[in-house]
């Protein structure tokens, strides 16, 4: 099963290497990892999507906790939460295809962020499923480039993943 972990870490040099190194040397699989700072510049937040059974997850969490730079870990998978991923995709778009691609963009509430002579670049945010669906919809038009940021997630309502 896939789990989504929200991990607060001290924003120290090497913290990403520590986390990534831990996953690789203990044989845990990362599906995606997104990292950036929080409202407190001393603290960064990682959203890690990891594949594994409950026992693996328990070990992942415990081993992460052993890292001195890791402050807090929340497994949001089973909790009500909002999750988003950003995708940018550059698609071949000749005259005939442009309109169709723009219609697809409309359906997925994606934005056209670049209008090239032969290509269109779309930006979309949404859940993983939505991004997957957009990708599938665009595939027939020849995707030249595609990149996803990896998932970020936040608990709904009055539950917080914060230091305090």
């Amino acid at each position, binding site marked *: 099963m896939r789990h989504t972990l929200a991990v607060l*870490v*001290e924003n120290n*040099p*090497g913290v990403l*290497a*520590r986390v990534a*190194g831990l996953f690789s*040397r203990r044989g845990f699989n990362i599906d995606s990892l997104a990292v950036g700072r929080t409202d407190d510049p001393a603290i960064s937040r990682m959203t890690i999507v990891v594949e594994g059974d409950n*026992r693996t997850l*328990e*070990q992942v969490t*415990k*081993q992460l*906790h*052993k*890292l*001195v*730079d*890791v*402050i*807090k870990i929340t497994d949001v998978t089973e909790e009500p939460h909002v999750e988003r991923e950003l995708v940018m995709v550059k698609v071949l778009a000749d005259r005939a295809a442009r309109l169709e691609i723009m219609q697809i963009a409309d359906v997925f509430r994606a934005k056209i962020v670049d209008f090239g002579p032969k290509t269109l670049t779309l930006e979309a945010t949404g859940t993983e499923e939505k991004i997957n669906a957009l990708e599938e919809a665009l595939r027939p038009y020849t995707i030249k480039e595609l990149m996803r940021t990896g998932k970020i997630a936040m608990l709904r309502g009055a539950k917080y993943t914060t*230091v305090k």
Partner: protein
Amino acid sequence: MEITAAEALVRCLELEGVELVFGYPGGAILPVYDALYSAKKIKHVLTRHEQGAAHAASGYARATGRVGVCMATSGPGATNLVTGIANAYMDSIPLVCITGQVPTVQVGTDAFQEVDITGITMPIVKHNYLVKDPEQLPSIMKKAFHIATTGRPGPVLIDLPRDVQEKKIKFNYPEKLHLPGYKPTYKGHPSQVANAAKLIRESRRPVIYAGGGVINSGASGELLEFAEKISAPVVNTLMGLGSIPGDHPLSLGMLGLHGARYANLAVSSCDLLVAVGARFDDRVTGKLEAFAPQANVIHIDIDPAEIGKNVITRLPIVGDTKTVLRALLEKVEPKENQEWLEQVEKWKKEYPLTYNKDGGFKPQCVVEKIYQYTKGQVVVSTDVGQHQMWAVQYFKFNRPRGLITSGGLGCMGFGLPGAIGAQIGRPDETVVLISGDGSFQMTMTELATTAEQNLPLKIFILNNRRLGMVRQLQEFYCDKRYMAVDFQFIPDFAALAGIYGMRGYTVTTEQQLVDILPEIFDRPGGVIVNCLIDEEENVMPMVLAGRGIDESI
């Protein structure tokens, strides 16, 4: 007044109560050594190789319970520490390691003697720091000592670029630490403790499985009281030996791969296994599915990540072993377990640890004679291999920190520098090194350190002219196709002793050994006793790979 960061580092060491540093200087750590020149309270022990410095610091920490400090220069100096750091990490030994680094502007340019030592050591330290801001150094030092010595102890490395060492700072040693992600749990959860007491009360065949965590936490007294109160036999991991007196009736010695058959049988038959500061290492458990198959497992450990890692635990208690055992002692009621203890006694008689005394000079006999002569009142350091197993099988460790050995990493070459650290840390005690001809040759450069420091080490080399443990493995797993295990040349260890100002002996019989023991132990000064033992003696019992520990041969 402003001082250099290097001077600040020395002042931090003094404030942490460090009296001893093992190290090896070099270009990138010159300012620190320059600051040490004026330090009155810190003695520097110059080893002959940085690996020796790391191992000696580790031996010192193991023997005294204090933090070991070692330092080295950048590049090869730092990489030579790595084995010693890994060794300390695997055995949860508190070390603070200081390395010099190339100047900040050169970091990342493949400069002369540059390696990314914080990157290299990331998997084998509890934490590490590359110091870029000299003002941060005192706070980093404070954190390093705190992290190394609290919770589950371990090594911490601080990498100091040369220009950072030279910068002037206003010295201020912080009182408080800001470590939001580091909060070890010491006190066991009360309801878990109560549940444990209940499981213990309901058990009929309890066994206590005690590891190095008991020694680290200074919980030997509590362990003994606990074992006696619930009448449970105690098996030890290699790191746990000495946590309960080896000659106590409830002690079954070491379990696992080369454990006594009665120890393994007790674990395989018990209905409750109380693991205390131990981590179910593969050398202990053998085939996991066959390990303690009838038992409920209570696991007491300060590191939550150890719980449930290898075996399924019925009842976890996260906390310091001493604190948890004390809480448990208040909750448990005395028990007898008469039948169970009789059964265990029967196994002890039926399957004693023994060896074939015919046909040559037996290594087990050397260990027995040392034990008998010293009455166990010495600190024993070992290397890794057959001699190590014989040492722990036939020497009864009656007090904690009486055995200085490389457990988790299984690091050949630890013995001599480990003994050096132990002897310096405990100058009033006799330190015995039991080594093998293979291991000893790995770090015998440190004989020079031994001589320079006037350390009266009593070194016994169980010399079978080969890599005995590998040979034994090849006998069992490679159909006796012995490859790269016979030494065609071995130095004369007795003669070597003379070169380093020690007394050297070569013994080939039990009688010769017995005759010289008084001279070895009662005359001051260091000795090397080259014991030419039976070449093909095996460590027995032995659990073959993939088997359960109840199937030892």
